[in-house]
């Protein structure tokens, strides 16, 4: 039995503890904002927060969440008003949008530790998040815009 919280709600899980959180969130809880992209932590589409840290849900077993707080894109903010989400909309970052929940979860974690990121910081921290539509230039701009918004809300 593993106990943890998902988006603030207590959860107990007594199935296969090796199952990656990604599939638990998507198939068992219906939280489909966390996406499947590769299954080997090579694309970042499944990025979630565990105790505030960005991790890849596709390779993180449920057992690793024991006693911890899991947060998905659905609960990054209450009304979609995290500075990252606002900046993403203002700059129309998304094309197909599929990788963007993972991008935003990674960006939110980046800004939590690096409130004024440089292009180099962004490239280093966002390297693991693949976007096949090629929205990288706008992701860079949106992270800087979100940083500015967070600095003077």
């Amino acid at each position, binding site marked *: 039995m593993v106990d943890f919280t998902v988006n603030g709600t207590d959860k107990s899980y007594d199935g296969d503890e090796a199952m990656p959180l990604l599939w638990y969130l998507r198939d068992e809880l219906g939280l*489909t904002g966390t996406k499947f992209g590769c299954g080997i932590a090579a694309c970042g589409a499944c990025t979630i927060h565990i105790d505030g840290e960005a991790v890849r849900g596709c390779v993180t077993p449920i057992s690793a969440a024991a006693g911890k707080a899991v947060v998905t894109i659905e609960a990054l903010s209450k009304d979609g008003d995290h500075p990252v989400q606002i900046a993403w909309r203002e700059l129309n970052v998304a094309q197909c949008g599929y990788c963007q929940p993972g991008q935003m979860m990674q960006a939110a974690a980046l800004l939590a530790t690096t409130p004024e990121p440089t292009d180099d910081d962004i490239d280093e921290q966002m390297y693991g998040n693949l976007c096949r539509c090629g929205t990288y230039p706008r992701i860079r701009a949106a992270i800087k815009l979100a940083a500015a918004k967070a600095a003077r809300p």
Partner: protein
Amino acid sequence: MRPGIAADAKTQALGASSELSRRTVLGAAAALIVSAALPTGSLAQESNAPLKFGRDAMPNGWRDDPRVFVAIDREGIVTVTCHRSEMGQGVRTSIAMTVAEELGAEWSKVRIAQAWGDETRFGNQDTDGSRSLRHFFMPLRRAGAAARIMLEQAAAKEWGVSASEVRAEDHMLRHAASGREAGWGEFAERAARLPLPDEKSLTLRPAAEFRYLGKDHTGLIDNHDITTGKATYGIDVRLDGLLYAVIARPPVFGGAVKSFDGAAAMKVPGVLKVFAIEPSPPPTEFNPLGGIAVVAKNTWAAIKGREALKIEWNDGPNGSYDSAAFRASLEDAARKPAKPVRADGDVDAALAGATKRVVGEYYIPHLAQAPMEPPAATARVANGTCEVWTCTQAPQATHDRLAKRLGLKPDQVRVNVTLLGGGFGRKSKPDYVVEAALCSQAMDGAPVKLTWTREDDIQHSYYHTVSVERIEAALDEKGMPTAWLHRSVAPTIGSIFVDGAKNELPFELGMGLVNLPFAIPNVRIENPEAAAHVRIGWFRSVSNIPHAFAIQSFVAELAHAASRDPKEYLLELIGPDRILDAVKLGDVWNYGEDPSVYRLDTARLKRAIDAAATGIGWGRKLEKGRGLGIAGHYSFVTYTAVAAEVEVTDGGIAVRQVDIAIDCGPQVNPERIRSQMEGAVVMGMGLALSAEISFKNGRAEQGNFDAYDLTRIDAAPRILNVHLLPATTFDRPLGGVGEPGVPPVAPAIANAVFAATGKRIRALPLNKEFSA
């Protein structure tokens, strides 16, 4: 279940009557397999039939009926139905903008609904070929205008005034003389009962009045859902009692299961059933590859179950497919004369009498589209019906394949279209949807979600072709070509429809090969045969990729041979301003468009090249190890050019700046044109620098994003400028946008690498030269 984005309406009045809210599918005429699958509009149509082009030539054509595309509820909320698939090009936003503009709607009161697969009702739905707005901009404007006129007529009748004095604007109906006004909701129901306005009475809004079209300020209509994780893609659909499936497919194309043992898989907790799916006989078309399916209570259990399968495979005739050996065979073919597909003048004589001859031989490997959302579908096949929810670029083709494979009538099948997490051509082929339906059938009608893992996607794609392009030119004393001989050797997409097909089809030849727009007196283009050993399919911009890479690289090689500036040389080679006729160039396809309307304008191509060059500061002095390259290309009846600055070190190629220019005629949604160009640069960089699918023993050597190396954020240029070249008026024909940005990227980068290093790399991906 999640409501998804089905077009079913709740309270629409205008347009609702029985139609929009009805879930049953109208009887759709099943299109012939090949006509639905292959681009149409070829000039090689039957000679006694009137020629059809553009939207008229697409299977099931087009509609402009406002009752199909526009609904207004009693609160005045406008719901526009989008019958084209959204995969990141922004079509749901652009279609809504188009209809809203003609209506006079406020954007905050406009919603979008996604059409199900039904071309009898909606007109053609194949979302490919960069033609959604090219084909449907005018019909959608007419639909919006007709709805506006019906609202005006309804208010006029009630107010006892002339309809010509009532204006629908700002989401209101106004009669200026009497000062009367009302919201749309009040008249929507009465408007819906009016007859459709006569086509001749339709007046479209003049461009000077546009509030949305051609403007940059409209945000993505799905922005909030996307940024909050609520957007529903094919892989996200949920139904009560949903089961989850994955399939082990033959590792070699054309292979089959020899024997299998599912006992260990059945012992994996959560696994419910293991069963065989028969391979489909050739031609492969859009049919499942066959294999062993594992259905389980969740995706993870299905994947673990599949890992526990013991399967022995028959590899079949493609078990020896080897990319290195195949490349050699293509090169061999490219060095021998073959069937000409265009011949002007006397190339042999000009080559024989040349003062200088230059040869370039280029190699472009297979690619996988690899959309971030892999192929996925949810199906429920029960009680003599089939309903699916899926990410598809081809809703009607999906519908037809399901009916055929399941032996159902057209009205027993329903295809609900979700958002697509990228498409790039992969999701034009609905093999995965049929697989999902077969899984549901095997589970006695329980709903089943089939997911392709990334390995499935990369190892069983409909791959971009693999090509050798060999070009030889004779130069005169000024260094300009007097003869041009190009042999293009590449397995054809036709091979998935006609087993054993070995020559490029008109639509492949027309993608920048035969419609070479250069002022050269003697031109011969040949297409030697090449057999396919994997499924070949459309990849964003398709055959333009190898053709543009070879031709635009070779032009820079000629410029070097002539000791000329590559940009000036390219412009001189394109020659004087003139309008070229596709037919006279030997292009019988012309992107399906009327060659008297869509003509290749060399001035527009040169203007795009100039804009990219100006943007990057062509000719400026650079640090050591840096270089500038340029390329221009005509594709999807649009003109694009790319100028790139690269820095080359021992570690490889870094792209520092890219300027991309596009002239696509009138710009409906410039904001999304910009984003498509940015994305095209990044995707073009991936195939230019690092992406390749290769085969050994018939098997793809790459399986996931660790080995299939796509562009990541650190490689994206810090400076990326998009130059939108304005059209003079909105009355000109629209060009494509989704694809034309891709082809010039790779040659511009290869040319920049040459400028930086003096090293000419003729094979993609370029970084392979530096990784040895």
